[in-house]
């Protein structure tokens, strides 16, 4: 178990009901996809946020990553919908 900061943006943030939190990364949660599955099981809000994980984008330490990216070493993990700036 090690501490990780989680950050949520846009409708992921709204559904989770929080913009950031510190968690202890559970053993067995090795990559981004695994973390989303684990988060979806926490409560209804998280379940709604991560109901369609394929749509969610992730960043490790403020860099875009794919869902199979290992969490090893990451201090900040962010989840958000596809970007719509510009």
């Amino acid at each position, binding site marked *: 178990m090690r501490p990780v900061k989680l950050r949520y943006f846009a409708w992921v943030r709204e559904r989770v009901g929080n913009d950031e939190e510190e968690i202890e990364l559970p053993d067995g949660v090795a990559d981004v996809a695994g973390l989303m599955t684990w988060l979806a099981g926490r409560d209804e809000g998280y379940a709604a946020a991560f109901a369609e994980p394929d749509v969610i984008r992730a960043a490790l330490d403020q860099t875009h990553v794919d869902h199979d990216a290992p969490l090893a070493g990451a201090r900040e993990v962010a989840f958000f919908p596809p*970007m719509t*700036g510009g």
Partner: protein
Amino acid sequence: MKPWNPNIRVQAEPFDAAHESQRLTAGRNDVGALVTFTGLCRDEGGRLAALELEHYPGMAEAEIARIAAQAAERWPLMGLTAIHRTGKIAPGEPIVLVVTASAHRKAAFEAAEFLMDFLKTKAPFWKKEHHKDGASGDWVDARDADDDAADRWS
């Protein structure tokens, strides 16, 4: 070519496109082409009262810097500015500014389009609609056309 650093900012305040453009050419005689792109908030036929821009502080600046570095590697640029606003923006107001300077127009045009295509699809900003009837509307959906535009550069 003179060394230069991209000018990248994420800010709530409006920007002055004219001033930002002049900065890239001031005091030099080797720039032949200057392209300025301004993205503005539309009212969608009178429906919208405002757009609200949420962003990921820190990553937004870092990601724009990564996109700018790619543009500078790909085209012989002499200057590059990218400014993205955050917070509530009313219809008619500017949201984003990209300025590129080069000796020739092809590089300046292509780099500006490249920057905008990747700002749209890679920079961590999200738009939420605020409607004129007072309702807080939906988050704007990502457009497939924007992904297609970004894909053409790979």
